[in-house]
């Protein structure tokens, strides 16, 4: 059963009472919220997300609530809670839906130290995954969104989860977070994709969420094998260019972007070492998404 099978009333009831239990890859999130925009946002963006049964283990019990006291009327807010604890300050109410996705990411990065968590997008071709680590603003989410609209499977647009035991990448297959100019670019590039409302004036500028492709969500339980490391950079007016990268440099770019590298210590070092051993790494500059996709497809066909 997935979320789209719930009636409006049933979903609203679960959101207010027991929580609606989304299974995103390895994790089950129980979400509670009285806010109608959260309900509508889930229906739009998580329609295909499978639901966990009531008697299953829940990884994170989260809630998005309206602010308390007078503030709630003067300046409406949204508050994120995980199991009764508020890890960060409330945001303006208009950002509630974005806050839900950021909050889910926060749970994984704050608590998920059983695995290596890299701030990177990950997409897969068959069972082979490309890891796209890059600082914000390098166009990694845009490239990721484009690839998953042209046949690549979405593993994650923000957090690449690497198992310490198997070295495999676990998929999350959650909505892709698009920022500023890339929102319109992606609407034009993939008119058939489903987009959430554009939320203005967040700390990251304007953001909009794009629904994960149904096939990626359906395969979210299947891990993928790390095969390529690609550091993307959007450079206006350039031809798509893929340049091999030295191993040491690639190691550092992964370690810099690994959110719990300092916590995992030696295990983190070995996990990244294994990625570097297993995957050729490249720098990739591009300006046209179609060229970028052709480059990735060629990479996939070459092996």
């Amino acid at each position, binding site marked *: 059963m997935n979320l789209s099978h719930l009636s409006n009333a049933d979903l609203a009831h679960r959101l207010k009472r027991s929580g609606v239990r989304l299974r995103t890859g390895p994790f089950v999130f129980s979400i509670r919220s009285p806010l109608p925009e959260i309900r509508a946002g889930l229906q739009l963006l998580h329609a295909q997300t499978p639901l966990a049964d009531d*008697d299953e*283990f*829940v990884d994170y019990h989260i809630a998005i609530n309206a602010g308390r006291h007078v503030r709630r009327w003067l300046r409406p807010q949204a508050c994120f809670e995980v*199991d*009764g*604890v508020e890890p960060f300050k409330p945001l303006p109410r208009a950002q509630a839906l974005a806050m839900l996705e950021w909050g889910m990411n926060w749970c994984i990065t704050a608590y998920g*130290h*059983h*695995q290596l968590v890299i701030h990177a997008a990950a997409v897969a071709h068959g069972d082979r995954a490309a890891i796209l680590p890059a600082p914000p603003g390098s166009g990694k989410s845009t490239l990721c969104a484009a690839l998953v609209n042209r046949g690549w499977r979405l593993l994650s647009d923000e957090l690449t989860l690497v198992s310490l035991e198997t070295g495999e990448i676990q998929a999350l297959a959650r909505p892709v977070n698009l920022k500023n100019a890339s929102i319109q670019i992606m609407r034009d590039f993939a008119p058939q994709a489903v987009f959430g409302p554009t939320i203005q004036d967040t700390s990251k500028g304007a953001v909009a969420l794009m629904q994960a492709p149904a096939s990626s969500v359906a395969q979210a339980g299947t891990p993928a094998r790390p095969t390529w490391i690609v550091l993307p950079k959007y450079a206006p007016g350039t031809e798509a260019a893929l340049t091999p990268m030295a191993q040491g440099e690639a190691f550092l770019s992964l370690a810099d972007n690994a959110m719990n590298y*300092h916590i995992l210590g030696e295990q983190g070092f070995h996990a990244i070492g294994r990625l570097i051993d297993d995957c050729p790494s490249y720098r990739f500059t591009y300006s046209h998404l179609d060229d970028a996709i052709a480059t990735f497809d060629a990479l996939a066909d070459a092996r």
Partner: protein
Amino acid sequence: MRAESASLLADTLTAPEPRLPRSATGWDLLIRHARHANLLARLHHRIAELGALSSVPEAPRRHLIAAHHLAHRQHQAVRHETDELRRALQPEGIDVILLKGAAYVVAGLPAAAGRVFSDIDILVPKPQLPQAESALMRHGWMSAKLTDYDQRYYRRWMHELPPMQHMFRGSALDVHHTILPPTARYHPDPTSLVSDSIAVPNWPGVRVLSPCDMILHSATHLFHEGEADNALRDLSDLDLLLRHFSREAGDGFWQQLVARAAHQHLGYPLWLALRYTGKVFGTPMPSQLMPSLPAVAPGGARLAMLDAIYSRILRPQHPTCADAFSALACKALYIRGHWLRMPPHLLALHLARKAITPEEKPSTDQADENERAA
């Protein structure tokens, strides 16, 4: 259901044979309780110690392993930080006397198992305090931003310096000169804490309190604390300390502990520690021990009140463990904590000050200093 669920974590931690939840929802509750009590890594340790980790279903096991990784990393950091402290203080001829969690980890005690930290606590004899403070500052530890009032409050009324933080590593340090504020009801003797402290093997220049003092300090800290967040964790520390030292030191241990408590005027916190470790964790102790402490045992109504408060505080502070009186118990604990730390007239002044000026801005020269630091 509530009463049973409130003891779920403590029962799992102390069961001599693995006693693990049988359902996924049972695991759900146990993991949440342990996380809220800061005992998730200790739960991992206990289950691993009983060889039962492989029988934990994968989803909850991931949370246990994650908590274990975090605690493991913190222990490495604590050892590194201890080394840095030693580097700062040894040239001054001052030993690093570790307190609480850092002491358990560096001395390799069972109470280190899965212990997590927010700061490191050390004890410095009061006459050496100015020298220690400037040595620490030269090595990068800075006092946190404080208002003038808070600075004065710490310097005049507290048993510790204002909290320090290392400017590069961000690690937090509390420097104590005794274990209770000078204004508190009880006055343990700081000189004997230092003179009876013991050297940590393989760590020249690093010491920890003697076993009895370590237990008394842990008890004193817990039962003077005004906040419930780490109460169950601290009680679990006490349980592990009592089990370990009574086993190691043999028969004379309990008499020694009682005698030391009397000498340090800490019979009452010890009595509370014994009562509640026994109740919550079933800590083994001689049956005649509690009755042998009649001078400090609180009477009927007072005991009923303490039980009403502590039975609610010494649980995971999670909504599924709370009852109608939990919020009241937390308020009572806050007042009790302050009450024990200062005489009524000081308490009244302090609370009034805090009520009138909830958020004082740092003074201008401090603001300048902060800007320079930034």
